[in-house]
């Protein structure tokens, strides 16, 4: 491929990216604008809580438990070198509450619920269901998109909290029950080190931000996909990839604001 041609293609991709970003922003405002209409029909949002929240429960609980088990093992192995294996609880709790809980739950959520939302909306678009709704004078953003967006935004922090709690129990299981660290030390060191405002609330804020990002990406990719089978499958891939990137980038930004130069 000749150089000018390559440049032109890169330029076209950049312009396309900026164009989509603009559309996504406008789309977010539309979703917020029509949210009032969809909240008057609360059962629509509750239905989406079922799809994105309840159906993600199993994967979140099981993964949280395993991550906690691994953290307990690794934490103990490293900390005992310094003779402070009692701090295992602290390490498990802080790494889960600040980072792993929100981030891993967000990634799992994007893969489980985000992709499903994109597929559902994309399929409705492909089979002209969204157009049909619009022709019946029912706004598809209010009826289809907004409830799925809010279902995700509400589910995400709840799932992240479950993930962290499950992980801390997993850490307790491995270090107290199997390895035999003193139970009192596990909990009391944890309580002394974990601060409600600083660690728990910041973790919840992170998970809310991730919830907004993943839900927006999922509904946007579904709504914007090319109305073909191939278009839907590409949109699902894009949802998972962009969500993962967005979560990790946002996590860096939030962490640098929340945990800089203190403690």
């Amino acid at each position, binding site marked *: 491929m000749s150089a000018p041609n390559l440049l032109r293609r890169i330029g076209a991709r950049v312009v396309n990216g900026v164009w989509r970003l603009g559309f996504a922003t406008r789309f977010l405002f539309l979703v917020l604008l029509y949210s009032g209409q969809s909240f008057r029909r609360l*059962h629509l949002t*509750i*239905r989406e*809580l*079922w799809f994105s*929240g*309840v159906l993600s*429960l199993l994967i979140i609980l099981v993964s949280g438990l395993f991550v906690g088990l691994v953290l307990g093992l690794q934490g103990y192995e490293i900390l005992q070198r*310094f003779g*402070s294996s009692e701090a295992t609880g602290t390490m498990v*709790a802080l790494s889960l*509450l600040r980072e792993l809980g929100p981030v891993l739950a967000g990634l799992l959520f994007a893969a489980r619920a985000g992709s499903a939302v994109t597929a559902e909306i994309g399929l409705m678009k492909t089979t002209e269901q969204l157009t049909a709704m619009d022709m019946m004078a029912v706004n598809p953003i209010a009826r289809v998109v907004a409830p799925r967006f809010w279902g995700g935004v509400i*589910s995400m922090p*709840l*799932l992240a*909290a*479950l993930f*962290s*709690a*499950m992980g*801390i129990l997993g850490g307790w299981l491995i270090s107290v029950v199997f390895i035999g660290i003193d139970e009192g030390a596990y*909990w009391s060191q*944890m*309580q*002394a080190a*974990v*601060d*409600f*405002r*600083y*660690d*728990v609330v910041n973790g*919840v804020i992170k998970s809310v931000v991730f919830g907004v990002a993943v839900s927006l990406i999922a509904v946007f990719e579904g709504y914007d996909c090319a109305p073909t089978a191939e278009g839907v499958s590409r949109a699902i891939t894009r949802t998972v990839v962009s969500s993962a990137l967005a979560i990790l980038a946002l996590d860096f930004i939030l962490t640098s604001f929340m945990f800089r130069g*203190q*403690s």
Partner: protein
Amino acid sequence: MSRTVLDLWVGFFVVISAAALLFLSLKVGSFAGFNSAPSYVLQAPFDDIGGLKVRAPVKSAGVVVGRVSDIRFDPQTYRAVVHFSVDARYEFPRDTIATIMTSGLLGEQYLGLEPGADVEVLKGGDTVQMTQSAVVLEKLIGQFMFNRAAE
């Protein structure tokens, strides 16, 4: 799936998530810590604070009684001024000594309060006059070498 069963599951989901949050705040975090309890702020000047950080615990007789809230450098005296809040339930005599101590050999540093015998107590905004700086390992080693050389 009928709507009532669906609502039941969503309700279950919300309830266990709320329980998880409660667990995180009460059992894992120290929600009942210094944030909610009323406290008063004291300050203490130090020659060297070592590695003391904001939010480090303030302990007396090994019990956490407060937190370091702010650390500043005073350009007039060239000393560090540590502000810390103390739980309002505890009162300390005016001649209390503030010391920067380390938990264990490599552990985190905290502010220790050693109460004196004065009848008057410290009030919010007061300054703890008697302080003892952090033990800095490098200085200690330097001193030791210097003494040996002088012998």
